[in-house]
C-alpha cells in the first residue's frame, strides 16, 4: 500500500516525522518520500519570484522546474524536482525545536506539493456526509466558518473528514475529496458556539477529532454539494450558485493551483469537473445554525 515514507539518518527525527505523516492517514496511489537531512539550509540564490503563504515562501516554475518551500519561522527548506516523488528536506535544529508548528506549517506544505505529483490537489475545504448520505465539500478561507461548521456537523452526528486539509483526486465516477486525518481546530468563538470550554492549558486552538464530538470520521467522499460559507449577521441562508461561480470560488480556495505551471492544467481540469459534478451554494452562516434542528438539511433539502 502506498503512503508517505520518511527517511532520515537521525532516528528520532525519522520517528517523529514518520509518526506525524502516518497520522495523516493519506494513501496516495504512489509512494511519496520525505528525505530529511538535519542541518542549516543554504542561502537562497533562487531568483524566481516568491509566492507567500503564512510563514512560508515558495518558488516554482521555469527555468529550474522544481519547487522550493522555505519556512520563515525557523530555517527549513524543502525541494521537490519536477515530476519527483521524493522531497529533499533540510531541517535546522531550530525547526526541530518547534515540531508541532514545523509539521503543521512547513511539512504540511511539502506534503501538499508532493501529493500534487500523485494527482491529489489540495483545496481549503472541510468534508462531511449528512444523515441522508449526501457528501458535502465546504470550501473557504481561514475564518469563513469551515472549522466551526465541521465541528457542529460532527456534534450532530454527521460523518466528517476534516476542517481544511482536503485533496481532490480524479476517480472513475467523478472527482473525490480525500481528507487528511487531523483534528478540527477551534477558536474561542467557535468553542463558545459549540458549548465547549477551552482548555486553559492548551497551546493555541484546541483540536477535536470528529469522534470526540459525537460524529464519525469519513476519509473519502464524492461531493454532491459544494458549500461556500461566509459569516453573516442574520439568519443562515443558502443561495444556489451556477457552476461558473462555484469554479471561481474553488480556484480562490485552491491556493496552489497557479504555483507550478506543469501541474496547473490538471488541477484546473479537476476543479472544473468538480464544479460540474456538484450543486453549489453560497452559505451565509448565522448563529441560528447552532440552535436545535439541522438548519443545513432544512435549507438544502
Amino acid at each position, binding site marked *: 500500500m502506498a503512503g508517505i515514507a520518511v527517511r532520515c539518518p537521525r532516528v528520532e527525527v525519522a520517528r517523529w516525522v514518520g509518526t506525524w505523516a502516518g497520522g495523516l492517514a493519506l494513501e496516495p496511489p504512489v509512494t511519496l518520500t520525505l528525505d530529511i537531512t538535519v542541518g542549516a539550509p543554504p542561502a537562497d540564490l533562487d531568483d524566481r519570484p516568491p509566492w507567500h503563504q503564512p510563514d512560508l515562501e515558495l518558488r516554482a516554475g521555469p527555468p529550474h522546474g522544481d519547487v522550493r518551500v522555505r519556512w520563515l519561522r525557523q530555517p527549513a527548506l524543502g525541494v521537490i524536482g519536477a515530476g519527483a516523488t521524493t522531497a529533499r528536506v533540510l531541517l535546522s535544529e531550530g525547526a526541530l525545536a518547534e515540531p508541532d508548528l514545523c509539521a503543521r506549517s512547513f511539512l504540511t506544505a511539502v506534503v501538499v506539493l508532493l501529493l500534487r505529483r500523485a494527482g491529489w490537489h489540495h483545496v481549503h475545504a472541510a468534508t462531511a456526509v449528512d444523515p441522508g448520505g449526501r457528501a458535502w465539500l465546504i470550501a473557504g478561507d481561514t475564518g469563513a466558518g469551515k472549522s466551526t461548521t465541521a465541528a457542529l456537523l460532527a456534534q450532530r452526528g454527521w460523518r466528517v473528514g476534516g476542517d481544511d486539509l482536503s485533496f481532490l483526486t480524479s476517480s472513475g465516477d467523478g472527482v473525490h475529496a480525500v481528507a487528511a486525518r487531523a483534528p478540527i481546530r477551534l477558536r474561542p468563538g467557535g468553542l463558545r458556539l459549540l458549548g465547549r470550554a477551552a482548555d486553559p492549558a492548551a497551546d493555541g486552538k484546541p483540536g477535536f477529532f470528529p469522534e470526540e464530538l459525537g460524529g464519525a470520521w469519513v476519509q473519502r467522499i464524492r461531493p454532491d454539494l459544494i458549500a461556500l460559507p461566509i459569516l453573516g449577521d442574520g439568519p443562515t441562508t443558502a443561495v444556489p450558485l451556477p457552476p*461558473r461561480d462555484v469554479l471561481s470560488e474553488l480556484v480562490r480556495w485552491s491556493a496552489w493551483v497557479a504555483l507550478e505551471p506543469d501541474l*496547473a492544467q490538471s488541477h*484546473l481540469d479537476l476543479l*472544473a469537473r468538480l*464544479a*460540474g459534478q456538484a450543486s453549489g451554494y453560497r452559505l451565509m452562516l448565522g448563529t441560528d445554525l447552532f440552535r436545535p434542528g439541522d438548519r443545513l438539511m432544512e435549507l438544502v433539502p
Partner: protein
Amino acid sequence: MSPRFRRHADLRLTELAGEGIVLHLGSRRYFSVSGTGLAILEALIEPRSMDELVEMLTARYEVDAARARASAGEFLERCRAAGVVLDEPAA
C-alpha cells in the same frame, strides 16, 4: 505578411457547461469566455493569423467568413487589451 497572434504562456484553459474558463497563472486572474472564445484561445497555443482563425471557426461552426472575422477580431482585441493574447513578432 499578416499579423499573427498567440496566447500568453501563463494561460490554462478548461471547459465547464459549454463555457471556457481561463486562468492566468502569473496574475491568478480568472476569466470566462464563450465556447467560441475558448476555441480561439485553444488554437492560439501556436501563433495564428486572423485568416487561419477564420478558417478554423468556419470549419467548426455554422458561420460565414465575414461574421467569423468580425467576431474573432472583437474577441482578439479584448484579449490583447487584457494581456491574454499577444502579438507574435514577425520572423
